[in-house]
């Protein structure tokens, strides 16, 4: 199966990735070859096999007690932010 430029544009939009004109043909080709490669799986009979999401079967996700475990470190965390103002993260205007 081959992916078209339109397919890749749609995938890039779903993934919120800008792809340049220069990059586009490379991705059309390489994503097509990856999809062809993983298509091999379609030939495997899997019938009633249960999908496996965790490598150690039977492991339950643990729950922790509902108590405060983290302290407020907003200033430290925000020191990595591209733009902050008055303790808030700044982004372009969302509502006109």
């Amino acid at each position, binding site marked *: 199966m081959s992916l078209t430029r339109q397919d890749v544009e749609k995938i890039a939009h779903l993934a919120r990735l800008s792809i340049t004109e220069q990059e586009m043909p490379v991705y059309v080709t390489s994503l097509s*070859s990856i999809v062809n490669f993983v298509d091999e799986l379609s030939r495997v009979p899997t019938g009633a096999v249960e999908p496996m999401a965790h490598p*150690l079967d039977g*492991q339950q996700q643990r729950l922790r007690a509902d108590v405060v475990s983290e302290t407020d470190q907003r200033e430290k965390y925000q020191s990595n932010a591209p733009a902050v103002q008055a303790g808030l993260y700044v982004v372009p205007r969302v509502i006109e």
Partner: protein
Amino acid sequence: MLHTLSIGELGLALVRKEISSVELVRHFLARIERLNPALNALITVTPERALAAAAEADRRRAAGEKGPLLGIPLIHKDIFCTDGVRTSCGSRMLDNFIAPYDATVVTRLEAAGAVMLGKANMDEFAMGSSNETSYYGPVKNPWDPRKVPGGSSGGSAAATAARLAPFATGTDTGGSIRQPAALTGITGIKPTYGRVSRYGMIAFASSLDQAGVFARTAADAAPVLQAMSGFDPRDSTSIDTPVPDYAATLDAPLKGLKIGLLREFFDGLEARNAALIRDAIEVYRGLGAETVEVSLPHLPLSVPTYYVVAPAECSSNLSRFDGVRFGYRCENPKDLTDLYERSRGEGFGPEVKRRIMTGTYVLSAGYFDAYYLKAQKVRRLITDEFRAAFTQVDLLIGPTTPTPAFDIGAKLEDPVTMYLNDIYTIGANLAGLPGMSLPCGFLDGLPMGLQLIGPHFSEAKLLNAAHRYQLETGWHARSPAGYET
């Protein structure tokens, strides 16, 4: 010649006060300064922090503390968060990211007294098998600068092989410890999924990622894995089961050990590579091990299975990089969508974008069942075959890689060819099994690796089997030319 000593020998020299940790750290920092520019194995060097930590280790020792890693230098893969130190994950996206906390692996090794010298280069977000996808440029293989060191933990492997530190940390999602260990002639161990905490380890594919160790020998790797392992409530998939004393069983005899020869690993294996593995099998037979041929018919499907599961998890994990709270932000975004799309488009490199898009595709409406669910089913078939094999044998043996280190640039244009490099290592990740690579000979002057895979939580047996092999052979003691002195 402090860099030629084992961790055990260095520890003894520290105990006998023949050297201090500060002297040891100065020695390795000087080697990094002299040798790293040609190798590009480190992204960040932290000399002041290292010297302060070494002085602290010396104080702790003077106060009566003991421990095999107290005062021993190491290099962390730049995927582990280090409080106050840039943690780039090999990406432009995190080029300016100063981690606000320590990964559990970092905390534990610091508690054991190990001293961080710096952060190792790596494939961007651990996606790659050659260390060529790093934003900071490729790492050179110390055995031949025209060759890749393997990946994604290529910087950790090259640094350990070049004796820039006695050991280094790495992560292995599809072979990223074992493959570079093989291609640089050192020892690498990826433990069982859940054995080492993933807290503070930047996520690529959360059901596969596992931290591990690069060292020159299994005997050196044992105390490091010991310090790293154990339950961590901050990682929801961390396993709460006791960690055995790895050093205690290192020397155990191998008489009666049942080793499985994986038919699928030998089918189509290049003759000279197969000969090296057969030589290693003979060493094990000489030590009293028995060998049995076993077959895992679905194992050849592990690469396509992985290249659905791993990109799917990656596309989800990397959605957190949005240009808002941390990391790279594009210039002059015209609206919020433009900010997301260009920050991600410009901040991620080509391979990371390729994997995010592969993952987005296999998870998208109309394709989810055909690709993602299908891959999860095949993953179970592969895992069940491993489990069945381990009812007959104690360990599986085979090659780590199909070939020795390849030329820089040789496989960059064709992702599928690059992905097939991990054909022998991916199975263990899908099944969550521990695996190890150890030097077993040379092809065309380049080191090759022997791979051992064990059942869940068999790290002690793997280290024991690797150590006994290394007592009989000298491959692990070879040093790349130019890095002995």
